[in-house]
């Protein structure tokens, strides 16, 4: 993930910014659905659409559950969608651990609601074509994920 | 971190009335008040005072509390005696045509912080 503005298929344009409210489980998922609808308008094919939707959803849930709220930027180039998901939360202390399937720091309340199975980051790894996580304790987390058609 | 009094003179479009020698001082915090008893109660050195008053009390308070300087707002021009006092006490004295609201707002937007931030323990 070298050049932040250019993907392989041409320059990325910022088309929309969304806000995620921390701890708001009622609204959780609404940003990823809005992203999906937008990409459909632009003509993204169904398989790529589903990969974007899953990536966006998992990233959004992480921001709601752990990040205390944040923003999502959607950038587009022909053939690629880029999601930049930023929060100002506590940061991820051990990224390797967080990437392990089943590892979760979810609270009991979150598990009651059905979340916190520890599949969020692994799911993103499976569905995004490329991704990068920038994080440090006390400095928030920024996830950049590219989904190629 | 912080601004020098030189920079503050520029941002507030202020006139330097007394003790220009002190303009190298670096300011990180400020207090905006017209009640000197209040200033004394919450004072801390390394702080700039912004006030609408332009009398002797202000200079005495600044000296006692060890404040870095005084900015008088709303183009209030202190009496000559006050300016001389400030020079003697080595208190930089500035006058700006801005009101208290804009002066505080401008400095806040440039990173200067309020007094109680110093007093409170840092959040975990």
């Amino acid at each position, binding site marked *: 993930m070298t050049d932040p503005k250019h993907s392989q298929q*041409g320059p990325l*344009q910022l*088309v*929309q910014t969304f806000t995620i409210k921390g701890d708001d489980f009622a609204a959780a*998922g609404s940003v*990823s*659905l809005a992203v*999906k*609808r*937008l990409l*459909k*308008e*632009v*003509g993204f094919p*169904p*398989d790529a*659409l*589903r990969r974007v*939707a*899953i990536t966006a*959803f998992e990233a959004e849930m992480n921001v709601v559950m752990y990040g205390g709220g944040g923003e999502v930027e959607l950038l*587009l*180039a*022909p*053939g690629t969608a880029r999601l930049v998901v930023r929060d100002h939360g506590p940061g991820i202390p051990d990224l390797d651990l967080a990437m392990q399937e089943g590892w979760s720091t979810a609270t009991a309340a979150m598990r009651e609601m059905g979340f916190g199975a520890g599949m969020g980051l692994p799911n993103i790894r499976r569905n995004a074509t490329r991704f990068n996580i920038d994080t440090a304790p006390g400095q928030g987390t920024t996830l950049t994920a590219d989904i190629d058609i | 971190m912080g601004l020098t009094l030189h920079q503050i003179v520029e941002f507030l479009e202020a006139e330097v009335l007394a003790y220009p020698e002190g303009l190298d001082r670096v300011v990180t915090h*400020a*207090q*905006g*008040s*017209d*009640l000197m008893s*209040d200033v004394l109660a*919450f004072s801390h050195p390394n702080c700039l005072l*912004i006030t*609408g*008053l332009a009398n002797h009390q202000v200079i005495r308070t600044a000296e006692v509390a060890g404040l870095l300087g005084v900015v008088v707002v*709303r183009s209030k021009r202190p009496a000559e005696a006050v300016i001389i006092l400030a020079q003697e006490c080595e208190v930089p004295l500035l006058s700006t045509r801005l*009101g*208290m*609201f*804009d002066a*505080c*707002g*401008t*400095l*806040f*937007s440039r990173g*200067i*912080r*309020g*007094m*109680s*931030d110093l007093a409170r323990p840092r959040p975990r």
Partner: protein
Amino acid sequence: MPAPWDGAAMANPGSELIQPARHYSIDPEACIGCVLCMKACPVKAIRVSRGLAQIRPDICVDCGMCYRVCPHDAVRVASAKLEDALRFPHSVAIAHPALFSQFGYDVTPNQVLLALKRIGFSDVIDLSWVCEMSSVAIADYLHSHPEITPGISASCPVVLRLIAQRFPSLLPNVVPVLPSRLLAAKTLKTRLAGRYGWRQDELGVFLISPCPAKMIAPQDPVNMAKPYLDGVICFPDVYSALFRELRTLEEDQTIFKSSGCGLAWGASGGQAEAVEVAGYTLAVAGFSEVLGILEVLEAGRLTELRFVEARVCLDGSLGGPLTVENRYRAKSVLARVIKQHGTQSRVDRARLRNMIDQGAFAWEYKIQPMPTPPLAEEPAEAINRLQAINELCERLPMSECGVCGAPDCATFAEDVVLGRSPSDRCPFIKASKEPKDAQAKGRVMTVRELVKELKLKVAAGKTGLGREVRGGYTSDLLSDVMAHAEAGAVWVTIQAHQNVVAVAVLKDLAAVILAGGRKFEDDALSKANQEGLPLLTSEDNAFTLTGKLYGLRVLPSK
């Protein structure tokens, strides 16, 4: 013998199977060009121009919402009438189970079926019987296709169209069991006609239906000479004839033999109940609810579901647009009838197994996707158009007033960018985006919004929270405030006594914020309550509070 669901028939290429939606149209004589239908249309298919509403046939999904809301009777329904049926030498009525809910608690399904015969039909078919059979066929399909999670019911024609147009990736999830009405019609035309000794062209098969869209037969290929269903007669067109007949009906026959299983298909949840499958089933009714579920399914979630019954009409078919009875009463009536007949299915399972194996329930043709075209074929151009739409939206008021003839500003922007509408249709459009300096001139907030933004506490004067804030003023010297503060400003101070209230009221200030975690004196509070002047408190000191207020750019400060 080939497996029933994977037969050669399914490999047939589909043709343009779903005709453009054409069951609702605007009557130009009656339409006055108001915006009610345009606003109500859930797929934004309607535009109003030159005093006339127009439905875009490529977007319309036949849901009938426009028909429901039009107060001028200007939405015409395309459906057959009783006389059309009776013109045939032989006519058969297929009675939708919702019909039994329309005549109150004292009329039985058997009576309704008999009444249909009396008003002129040669024979009548109880559709709920076929529905019972279809439940088994659907379960069988799901059982032999465990990878389909979930299967989506094909019986609501609007849902089918929604999926083909907007969620084509979900087409493989649609359970390819013939909707019961089509199975009944097909059986009548292909087998029973001969049995009765009737020529096929002499036989008219009509569905008595709560909705005209049920005419849509996605399995009828365009090149087929004659469709299975000759027409759909909606409830209002037979109601009075049936009502009169029921009053003097002699119940000398028993033709109704179904159980509650099939009857329940008339309401939302009935199918999901009746389909016996291992795993979770879900029933969704209502347009936005169905859209919501389809969105979520398309996003790859809810894979633990095995079957979804989706209907765009609230409460299911008995809540359809062309019903007569109030849908709550209809629900209650149907529930009672179901109870009376029990939920033990009465169909002959062995015969049913035979039919399934013969492929009697299978679709003959696959449904082709008819996706709504993207903003442009070329992705780079599509992105450009998206940006153009965003930019145009910044020059629009976003008040969704409808004056431009589009349902909302975002749709209008899309119409303009795609060349469907001139931009001057909007009387409020700005020539260009407001320059940054103009934005820096600030925004108008109410005291209430300020309280929220700065996390203030309201100590008194709640009634004044709606006041507009114009600027700020920081001072602890009352004489100074009297001399220089401007009306509408928010006053930041550490003075807590009642004179502050007097000055604030005199100067018509928006509110007073007491800084530094201080508390107002009681006199001040009661005076402020009397005057409706908001007194607010903040933990922040005056400098910080002023800084934050300043940063909000609440209009000019001096």
